[in-house]
């Protein structure tokens, strides 16, 4: 909380006058009660704020959170994972054992095992990893199997213009691909930024 208050103070000092109309709105919208948000001025307000110290504080907080996540994953205590993946222009929220359908032409055939690389978000009971916009490649692996490739039911496209002797009827069946999600795993420790970037698997689609 300390670094939060520091930053709050900074913000308030920078734009003390302009935000006066907005602060009321912010306060009401915010989840924290109004009393917490009151900018409690420090006694040593004249002294310059050590930006590096604030950053260090934030980093420490981040590291501790990452460490807790890593510990949980290492002990296999995270439970079932879920992920939001981007696949063929659509986003799916999936867990292991799910079935998703891809509409339209898509080359993979039945029995193919593929990994879905565009993971936008991954989470467990106690933590969530959010990508900006996608998680770094290799952090979370999502494996899927192509189970079925079929055509949809016959859709009728019927067009008619009144009094113009115009009528068309078309029948259409588009391909559908069914995918079974096999596993979702956190492949390597979170925020090990020193580690070399792993070669991402070849993206075909």
């Amino acid at each position, binding site marked *: 909380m300390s670094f939060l208050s520091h930053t709050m103070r900074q913000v308030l000092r920078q734009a003390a006058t302009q935000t006066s109309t907005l602060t009321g709105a912010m306060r009401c919208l915010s989840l924290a009660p109004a009393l917490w948000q009151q900018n409690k001025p420090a006694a040593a307000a004249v002294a310059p704020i050590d930006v590096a110290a604030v950053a260090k504080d934030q980093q420490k907080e981040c590291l501790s959170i990452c460490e807790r996540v890593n510990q949980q994953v290492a002990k296999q205590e995270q439970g079932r994972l879920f992920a939001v993946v981007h696949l063929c222009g659509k986003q799916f929220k999936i867990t292991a054992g799910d079935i998703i359908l891809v509409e339209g032409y898509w080359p993979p055939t039945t029995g193919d095992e593929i990994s879905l690389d565009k993971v936008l978000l991954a989470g467990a009971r106690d933590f969530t990893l959010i990508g900006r916009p996608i998680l770094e490649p290799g952090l979370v692996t999502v494996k899927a199997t192509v189970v079925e490739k*079929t055509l949809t039911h016959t859709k009728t496209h019927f067009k008619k213009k009144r009094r113009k002797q115009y009528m068309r009827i078309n029948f259409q069946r588009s391909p559908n691909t069914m995918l079974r999600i096999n596993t979702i795993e956190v492949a390597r420790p979170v925020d090990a930024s020193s580690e070399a970037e792993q070669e991402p698997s070849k993206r075909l689609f």
Partner: protein
Amino acid sequence: MSNSHLFMKSGFPRAPLQNGLGRYVCQLQRITLKFCKNNGSSKGMRDFIENHLVDFAKENPGIVVYVKPRRHRTPVLVGEYLNGDREWMSCRNSTEADITKWVDLLKTQNGSSSSLRLRKMWHTDVPSIQGPWTPFLLRAPETHGQAYPSVDASKPLDAPQTATEKLIELFRQQQLETEDVLSQKRAE
């Protein structure tokens, strides 16, 4: 677009018998190719049997292939599936390429799916892992016990600060400042 499909049998995506969880099992068990040896409408089917059928059978050892010649009848493809479905398809006057595509379709599908309208493109057994969203999620605890109507909650969000409020705030700030100074002195 007509709405006739609305009255069709509808359903949700399912895969039979946990297919794909361990390994993928081809659902097509038997395929029967019926054709005529001299009729022109079976030309494509005959070409397919000559050029591709042996390769197809070799590639898919799990599928039983029957070839049934019959005189003066249209060519037909019949697929029989693990779930008991039977898909019948007339291949009258279709070319070799067409038949290759239809055979491939019969091979890759799980049953005859032609008459099912899908309502969702997603199926899960575990709908929520972090718990479903409720209006009280991530709310300040005070708001739970809030009695309505309340003066505070019914104010507009963008109401500008009044002079009185500003004065009160300034006064509070001053008080806090003096408190801080006092506490520092005490600490020293």
